[in-house]
């Protein structure tokens, strides 16, 4: 089977996506987001959301415990750094595998139930992992302090290959290229593109069709004699591996891991990213993840002075009033904006930003004499 057997429109989407990601630093420069730390976050959470979307978008199973896999991935990656090598490649391989292994166990049990029971089960498992990481598993996770590198780490492979980092704590490096700044971003971006491609292949495959069928009517699938559970489990494990990979990458760009990555608010965040972008669409989750991380970064940096400057065109009294009102929503209060955004999206645009784009496109198409508006990317809204 030809691995690149994509339809023409998919190929165009993929190429556009690759160009957009690789030129990210240039494109996002005018928005004040063109610096590597943030770009790395875009890519990493993009991967996380793409993975989540394979489960939620395709099968409709709403998992509230995906952050557990992210956290497990991070811990695995840091342990790989400590024990084997500072090279990110073994770290992310192990992170993905361990994330996958965890999701096999959790998925096997959770998928015995569906609907809200499934959500509660995954939530229960994630909370269990979080609580254990904080308490009993402290020897592995280093509890509240978080797992960090130490000078006394064995780093067996590095030693075997005669690499000595001396007395400093090394950043992870890919055969001598340090994984910070832009090299770190391009490493994450490459993986993001690979993940996007995998997700595209899944969406277009018979397997993807099967997952969609699970979402639309599981009973009917069972009546036709198909056991749907292996398919759902496969989707769950794939998304768990994506989450493990994302967790591993978080550790690659910044080698420490803490239990708070597993908290259920973190699981909620990835749900939000997927919904905001448009669940069940290819590009949606990446856009959603980018948008949330971007606004988180921008909004939480705002303070009173910046607000006053922003409203400087208004008369003085109004200026102060506006500043104090909007200061509720930025800086410390950024979560308020997040929550409100969440509600607005679910209420008015359940299909997410991608549905919004599609509607706008449709409108333009109608005005322009009803030209062909079938989009190049898959934009079917979530059921």
């Amino acid at each position: 089977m030809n691995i690149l057997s994509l339809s023409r429109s998919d190929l165009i989407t993929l190429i556009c996506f690759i160009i957009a990601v690789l030129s990210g630093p240039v494109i996002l420069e005018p928005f004040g987001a063109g610096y590597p730390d943030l770009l790395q976050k875009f890519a990493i959470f993009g991967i996380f959301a793409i993975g989540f979307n394979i489960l939620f978008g395709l099968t409709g199973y709403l998992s509230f415990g995906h952050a557990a896999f992210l956290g497990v991935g991070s811990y695995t990656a840091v342990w790989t750094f400590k024990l084997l090598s500072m090279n990110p490649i073994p770290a992310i391989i192990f992170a993905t595998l361990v994330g996958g292994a965890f999701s096999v166990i959790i998925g096997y049990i959770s998928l015995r139930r569906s609907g809200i029971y499934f959500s509660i089960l995954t939530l229960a498992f994630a909370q269990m992992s979080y609580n254990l990481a904080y308490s009993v598993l402290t020897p592995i996770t280093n509890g509240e302090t978080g797992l960090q590198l130490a000078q006394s780490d064995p780093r067996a492979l590095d030693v075997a290959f005669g690499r000595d980092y001396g007395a400093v704590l090394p950043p992870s490096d890919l055969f001598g290229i340090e994984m910070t700044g832009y090299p770190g971003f391009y490493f994450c971006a490459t993986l993001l593109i690979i993940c996007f491609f995998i997700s595209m292949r899944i969406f277009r495959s018979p397997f993807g069709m099967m997952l969609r069928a699970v979402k639309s009517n599981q009973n009917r699938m069972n009546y036709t004699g198909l056991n749907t559970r292996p398919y759902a489990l496969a989707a769950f494990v794939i998304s768990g591996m994506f989450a493990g990979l994302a967790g591993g990458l978080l550790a690659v760009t910044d080698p420490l891991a803490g239990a708070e990555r597993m908290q259920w608010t973190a699981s909620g965040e990835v749900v939000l990213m997927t919904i905001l972008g448009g669940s069940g669409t290819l590009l949606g989750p990446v856009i959603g993840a980018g948008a949330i991380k971007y606004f988180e970064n921008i909004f939480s940096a705002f303070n009173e002075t910046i607000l006053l400057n922003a409203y400087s065109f208004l008369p003085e009294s109004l200026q102060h009033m506006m500043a104090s009102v909007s200061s509720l929503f930025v800086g410390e209060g950024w979560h308020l904006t997040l929550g409100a955004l969440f509600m607005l999206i679910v209420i008015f645009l359940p299909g997410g930003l991608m549905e919004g784009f599609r509607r706008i496109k449709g409108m333009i198409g109608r005005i322009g004499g009803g030209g062909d508006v079938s989009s190049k990317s898959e934009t079917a809204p979530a059921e």
Partner: protein
Amino acid sequence: MDAILLQILNGLDKGGAYALIALGLTIIFGTLGVVNFAHGALFMLGAFCAVSVKAIFGLNKITLDPTQLTAWGTPLEIRQPYVEIWFGDFGRLMMEYSVPVSILVAIPVMLLVGIIMERGLIRYFYKRPHAEQILVTFGLAIVLQEIVKSIFGANPIPQPAPDTMSGMLDFGAVIGMDAGNVVYPAWRLFYFIFSLSVIGMVFAFLRFTTFGMVVRAGMADRETVGLLGIDIDKKFTIVFGIAAVVAGLAGVMYTPILSPDYHMGMDFLVLSFVVVVVGGMGSLPGAVAAGFLLGILQSFASMNEVKNILPGIDQIIIYLIAVVILLVRPRGLMGRKGVMEN
């Protein structure tokens, strides 16, 4: 024996809170068919009713006394709470009993909040999938808790129990055992009794009033009740309000046990959902029983003897039980057939 009794007591107050929240969740789910992730936020709002009442009672009238000087040479400020000025000794009593007094404030406030929530948001989600209900109420919970955070700050605000109930009660002596072995904070026992009475009132309301009968009928078969010419929507709005009041009361009275902060609701919500699922979706007695059961089991799991055998069990016991129950008895302990089966 003493240790076991003490652990049961320990579990009862927490179990009471779980039971009250889970009861409200179940009522809402059973009547409206909505999965309300904002219910923990209602619990939190109740707790902050108590905080605001205490803050209002604590408003001082500041008078400057020029005859007395402070160490800095400024006139001494004499602070006297307004309630004390207006009501005298009764005012002082009210300040001391600010937590129980807050109940009177919390009932109308929470009823109003519940009704506004239902009319303004929830009713548009009756026909939408459960996933969307979860998501929108989750968003609402974040919004509510952030609003509270911006008003009251992020730190826990301790609320004292009234002096008469803040001491210890020798529970062992009360039930005829040796004195001094089972000594327990009086307020926690009071909380348990309080939660039982609220639960009793809710059940009595549903069982013995016409309104309750209609609501129960609506839970069983909404459509038929509608066909009988009863405006079920209006009834259910009030039911939502009542569920909000129950959660709010649970929060008000819990403040002396746990100093309220803005994310207390989320912490309780996750556990309460587990409680609902263990008890059986849509079963009111199930929710109450599971609430107390899990509260007591949790306190047993945090005994040192148990922790030595199974380290960390106290952290995960509730979730572990939920997993086991869901796999062994998919409908929960007392779940009804046909609820959330698809």
